[in-house]
């Protein structure tokens, strides 16, 4: 089975070479038969990669320690779920997952892109083939997951205990669906440059892919953040760690792309910029892959360090970013610029959005790469953390968030900012009220906290205002309003949901950072501690044995206001004997939207235990907002306008008859 997987991978590499060359030649020479090769080859390549991945997963599930990668990252006593997720909990397997998703997206274009112009489809598949070929070669040359060991060890070395969590089942696949999803936008852009032609229908094809990738990337980042929050036991949700920034940069650029693609589709302008943004977004995904996979960073994500891998990915990075940008420089002048618009208009607002988002991406890029560049050039070692980003990223985000509610209320071409402001009066009044209430009535609220709460309320109510205005609130009778509301395009709901989610996330961040409390103390069994109105009694430590670990569980009784027990919070110190590693399992109790977070430290000589506890008001909104943003993207995807190939049908009856794809 393992050799089958290995052969399938080599075959998939060979097919990717065919995929990158034959359709390209076909498109250049106008040969229909050569172009038609692209589709079947792409689908077969995906099937082979899936087979290869399945072979590796079954080696992991069956604990076949004759495979080096399994031996290094698995153990026979691990629960089955971690045996399977361990498939991508290591460098080799995660790269295989990367190409699996790449070929999956390629196959989707091959299967559902029948209504694309033949040359565009051929070129898109060829560019996908080039990316695939580079990464297949990378895996086979430097990171082969199928290498055998002889003699085969009897027992494996266990998966890194931090990764033995359900998060590993969700976070990497989602993140990669996002990262790699942008490869389609990239391929479409490069294909457009090869053809030297770009039109509004191009944006109609690119926008759904951007939405899909953005949706998964949002989910992947939110899930990663929550995972780090509960697993590491530090109570933080974002560390400005280079690895986090690596995923955040494509998200910021992808958000900008999402917005500029709307302008391009609706108004047929900003074409060249949108195309460049699509190239940059995937380039940042590649950069992220390089940062995380090359071993230039020490982190939980850098499973192994091998200079050959770093150099190889750097070559891929240079080739694709350099190549696509050079092509852009050569061909962009051929593309025609679009129509003009007034600075105060929907287009103008979206340009402003892009200006802020790309500048913000640039500051994150500088903060992430500068320490590495400095070390390479001078050997000086610096670290750039929250203080840097608070000063650079923060000031860019505040004005951007403040103008978000205006955007959807401005008309295309020439907008009326006064009319939009009038409509936002209610949102503005509520935001100011929230600000004043926070500032005046909540103890210890800083100016910053009040401002943050006000901004979050502004975003949430602003998003709802958009829906209200568009369904004719106050202008038409309630029954007509309901009908209008139900008849709004799905993409209007998508926009409102995404902006609402942004407001919720902001509210969660402000609540946690500005109103959170924390205590570090050492406790004897029986002692109680009080934090922000919650009383906990330490009940003592008790040992327990898990499948591949032992743990000391600290039990804390949460006391209700009436002095009765209100549930137990447990936090544990786990010891994994195979790797001689200790991990902390934090204890979390969700109360409404807030959480009580508890983390167990070392035991002192006198029998007391160091305990760190946090009260995190509204913290769940940080990730809840992410889910709402995902829902917004999903809603936009359901918009009939975006269904590729479904020509805009005016009448509902016609739409009901039309097949979905």
């Amino acid at each position, binding site marked *: 089975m393992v050799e089958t997987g290995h052969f399938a991978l080599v075959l998939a590499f060979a097919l990717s070479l065919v995929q990158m060359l034959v359709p390209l030649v076909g498109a250049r020479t106008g040969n229909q038969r050569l172009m038609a090769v692209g589709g079947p080859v792409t689908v077969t390549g995906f099937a082979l990669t899936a087979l290869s991945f399945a072979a590796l997963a079954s080696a992991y599930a069956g604990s076949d320690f004759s495979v080096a990668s399994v031996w290094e990252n698995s153990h026979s006593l691990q629960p089955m779920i971690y045996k399977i997720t361990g498939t991508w909990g290591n460098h080799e397997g995660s790269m295989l997952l990367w190409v699996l998703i790449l070929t999956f997206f390629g196959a989707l274009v091959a299967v559902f892109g029948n209504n694309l112009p033949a040359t565009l489809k051929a070129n898109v598949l060829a560019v996908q083939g080039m990316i695939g070929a580079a990464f297949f070669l990378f895996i086979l040359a430097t990171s082969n997951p199928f290498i055998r060991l002889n003699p085969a060890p009897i027992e494996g070395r266990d998966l*890194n*205990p*931090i990764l033995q969590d359900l998060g590993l089942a969700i976070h990497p696949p989602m993140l990669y669906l996002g990262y790699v999803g942008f490869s389609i936008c990239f391929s479409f852009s490069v294909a457009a440059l090869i053809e030297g032609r770009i039109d509004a229908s191009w944006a109609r094809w690119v926008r759904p892919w951007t939405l899909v990738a953005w949706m998964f990337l949002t989910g992947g980042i939110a899930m990663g953040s929550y995972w780090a929050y509960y697993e590491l*036991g530090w109570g933080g949700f974002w560390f400005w760690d280079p690895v986090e920034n690596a995923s955040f940069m494509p998200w910021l650029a992808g958000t900008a792309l999402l917005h500029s693609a709307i302008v391009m589709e609706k108004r047929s302008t900003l074409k060249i910029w949108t195309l460049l943004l699509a190239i940059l977004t995937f380039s940042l995904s590649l950069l992220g892959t390089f940062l995380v996979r090359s071993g230039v*960073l*020490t*982190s*939980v994500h850098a499973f192994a*360090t091998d200079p050959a891998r770093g150099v190889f990915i750097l070559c891929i990075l240079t080739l694709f970013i350099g190549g696509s940008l050079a092509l852009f420089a050569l061909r962009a002048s051929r593309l025609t610029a679009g129509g003009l618009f007034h*600075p105060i208009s929907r287009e103008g607002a979206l340009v402003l959005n892009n*200006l802020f988002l790309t*500048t913000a991406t*640039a*500051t994150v890029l*500088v*903060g992430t790469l*500068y*320490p590495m560049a400095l070390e390479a050039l001078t050997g*000086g*070692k*610096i*670290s*750039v*953390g929250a*203080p*840097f980003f*608070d*000063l*650079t990223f923060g*000031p*860019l985000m505040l004005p951007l968030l403040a103008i978000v509610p205006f955007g959807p209320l401005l008309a295309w071409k020439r907008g009326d900012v006064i009319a939009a402001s009038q409509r936002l009066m209610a949102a503005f009044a509520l935001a100011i009220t929230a600000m004043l209430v926070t500032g005046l009535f909540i103890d210890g609220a800083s100016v910053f906290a009040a401002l943050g709460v006000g901004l979050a309320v502004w975003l949430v109510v602003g998003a709802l205002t958009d829906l209200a205005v568009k369904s004719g609130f106050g202008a038409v009778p309630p029954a007509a309003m309901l009908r209008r509301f139900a008849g709004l395009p799905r993409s209007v709901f998508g926009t409102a949901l995404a902006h609402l989610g942004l407001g919720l996330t902001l509210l969660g961040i402000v609540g946690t950072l500005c109103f959170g409390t924390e205590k*570090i*103390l*050492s406790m004897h069994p029986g002692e109680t501690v009080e934090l922000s109105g919650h009383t906990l009694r330490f009940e003592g430590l008790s040992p327990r044995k898990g499948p591949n670990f032992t743990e000391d569980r600290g039990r804390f009784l949460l006391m209700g206001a009436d002095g009765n027990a209100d549930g137990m919070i447990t936090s544990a*110190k786990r010891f994994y004997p195979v*790797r*001689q*590693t*200790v*991990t*902390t399992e934090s204890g979390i109790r969700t109360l409404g939207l807030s959480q009580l977070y508890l*983390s*167990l*430290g*070392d035991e*002192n*000589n006198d029998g007391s235990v*160091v305990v*760190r506890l946090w009260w995190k008001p509204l913290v769940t909104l940080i990730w809840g907002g992410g889910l709402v943003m995902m829902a917004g993207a999903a809603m936009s995807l359901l918009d009939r306008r975006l269904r590729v190939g479904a020509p805009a049908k005016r009448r509902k009856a016609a739409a009901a008859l039309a097949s979905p794809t």
Partner: protein
Amino acid sequence: MTRRQKRMSVILAGLAFLGAAAGLTFYALGQKASYFYMPADLATASVPPGQRIRLGGLVEKGTIMRGQGATVAFSVTDKQKSVKVTYTGILPDLFREEQGVITEGAFGPDGVFVADSVLAKHDERYMPKEVADGLKAKGVWQESTN
């Protein structure tokens, strides 16, 4: 305004915006980045009390002392010099004697380094990269410490 003037003013506003962002970024890099030192480096570099730095090295054997409550004192060494560090909080799970750590904080007026975060390696295979590089540069790196 003519169309040309309008366009120029939009472009100028955009450039001013980017210039401000770039200026802020470079200011922040100068002010807010924290430098990494190992104990022996501190003899030559003058680090005033209160300036945030990262201090890395090995936890010196026999120096870990638990004081009142959750405060811990220990020394960080690069086998040439050592620096006394205090930290209040929960030490990372992989914090042990003779293991690599990176502490972040500032020197107090008494010359003791007050850390507000302590990082150890992520799992048993690796040492923090800066510490490993620093020990190699000082010639005191032993494979066995990894």
